[in-house]
């Protein structure tokens, strides 16, 4: 029983990071209809930048700076590479964002090298743990789950109650209509890149002590994040969080049945099955899905 709970805790920990990446995907997808293949790279950049900055400043400040830097970086990417394209085809956008992800990864390799980096635990050390009814939980897990929950709530408030958030939603609902209402759709796209870069970077900082971050962590996270986004139904962030927990826990249990080297195989196979069987996602609406093209 305790072992079971332990696996669930491990699953939730991984689920948290997947959820963060998936939310990043969804934000950009909602405003632009683009899947940003470089989303995982934002997570990597956040973790790596914070690791470098913490040499010069206290940890919370380093994390904050890393998030801001990645956010500016996200805006730059959008302005330089995407903003001026006139109605690009999906194939073109896929290839451009893949190219960007390669470029960011290779640049990170030349800046930080191949080494694995990890931020220190926010509280305690790697060996401290909280005993909850026989289950040992690292305090970092509480940080990860806590900060992510707060982030999801804040995002909900942002999208529902602030003008900027409403403008971004308008942009995703109907771009032309939003433009007619005087919303600068181009700026909304830039904002969505900034927002998802910031979320990704914060996620990278939170999980860095547990999972470590290195130059090529990004692409793996991206595919998991996409799996989760699909599982929940693309564009639906609340469902993505639930789907992330499911995938995290499934993955964590797969180690029981299969060698750990096949962990990724399990989650990607799940993604393929979902794509083949129900591309609108587990929580998607079949009637709405019929109107969409997959």
């Amino acid at each position: 029983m305790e072992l079971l709970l332990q696996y669930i805790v491990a699953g939730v920990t991984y689920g948290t990071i997947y959820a963060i990446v998936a939310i990043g995907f969804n934000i950009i997808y909602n405003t632009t209809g683009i899947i940003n293949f470089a989303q995982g790279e934002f997570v990597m950049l956040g973790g790596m930048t914070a690791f470098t900055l913490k040499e010069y400043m206290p940890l919370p400040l380093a994390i904050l700076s890393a998030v801001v830097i990645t956010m500016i970086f996200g805006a730059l990417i959008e302005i330089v590479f995407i903003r001026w394209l006139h109605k690009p085809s999906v194939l073109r956008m896929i290839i451009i964002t893949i190219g960007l992800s390669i470029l960011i990864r290779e640049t990170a390799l030349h800046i930080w090298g191949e080494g694995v980096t990890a931020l220190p635990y926010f509280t305690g050390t790697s060996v401290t743990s909280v005993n909850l009814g026989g289950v040992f939980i690292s305090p970092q897990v509480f940080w990860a789950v806590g900060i992510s929950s707060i982030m999801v709530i804040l995002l909900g408030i942002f999208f529902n109650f602030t003008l900027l958030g409403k403008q971004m939603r308008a942009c995703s609902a109907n771009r032309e209509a939003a433009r007619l209402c005087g919303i600068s759709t181009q700026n909304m796209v830039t904002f969505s890149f900034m927002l998802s870069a910031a979320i990704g970077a914060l996620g990278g900082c939170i999980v860095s002590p547990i999972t470590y971050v290195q130059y090529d962590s990004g692409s793996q996270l991206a595919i998991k994040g996409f799996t989760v986004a699909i599982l929940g139904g693309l564009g639906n962030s609340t469902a993505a969080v639930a789907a992330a927990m499911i995938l995290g826990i499934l993955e964590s249990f797969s180690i029981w049945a299969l060698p750990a080297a096949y962990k990724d195989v399990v989650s990607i196979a799940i993604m393929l099955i979902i794509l083949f069987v129900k591309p609108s996602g587990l929580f998607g609406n079949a009637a709405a899905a019929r109107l969409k093209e997959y």
Partner: protein
Amino acid sequence: MSSKFLQIFGFAVAIIAIQIFTQITDSAFHLTQLTMTAYYSLLVIGLCMLIGYAGQISLGHAGFFAIGGYISAFLTTHNLTAMKGKPFIALCSKFGLLVGRKDLYGGDLLVFHPWAACIIAVCTVLIVAYVIGGPVLKLKGHYLAMATLGFGIIIYRIVLGTSGLGAADGISGVPGFTLLPGVTISGSGSGKILNYYVAWGILITGMTLLLNLISSRVGRALSAIHGAEDAAEAMGIPTANYKLKVFVLSAGFAAVAGILLTHYNGSIGPSEASVMKSVRYVAIVAIGGMTSIWGAVSMSLILNYFSLRGSFGTYDDAVFGVILILIMLFAPDGLIRAQVLVDLKSFFKRITSKEAAL
């Protein structure tokens, strides 16, 4: 018809000229990379057919390449001596599928004949492509890209995590592949020139096949699908059927490329299955202009050759990333096409007319 023949003839002449050039300048060592380039190009033209003509992206072709290469490598190196008594093995032996040879230390080896291994590998890839192609090709856009990417990653993870396939080391000691008596695909020094011609000969055969296919009824149907799938469907073209066939065909090209290159190198490693490889192939097709077999081949020749020579150093992947972005931003229809010249002309005209106005 005749212009196509002339193009292919010209290409063959260029291939011979390169060989003679290396002979004269005493730089025959370049032939090794050029031979490998030919095999990679075989995959690239297959992918070009899929992306450019059928309009379906695949980010998992390195997976097909690796399945072909790995099966062939495994079957031709895995020693079956201990299992000699098993009925299945005895049956294979009876049909002449197995060959015995001595290993490095004089021990007996009983392995599959390269031809048998090759056929098994190609058939496996075709079946895999057919099975996953059905549901995958129903998807569009991002979903298609992600599904093929996912397939590629699954193959990569499996070859990396399976100790029977050498895990991170891959399989080495793969024997040469005797296509015909006297014609062996292997990396040994003596057959370098022969191997160069065999590789490019196979590539030219593949190109001829595809070029003929493109200018046939099938090719026109495919470009109709690329242009407007719904319209093509309405015109009575069985779009799903055609897409699947091209997918399987291009997977077959990838498998053959993987098998032959594995025998040529004498080894295969998990890096051949990596996502970066798949992206690289897509990059080459994109730079070549998507809908141009010639463009794809010429770009594949240049980029693969320099990459294999190590000209890009540690920036190898970055170079491909940069090229990919630049091409997609500024010339989404590729570099090798007449329109580029027209664009450049009008660009210069604008500049010169501005100068004249000043």
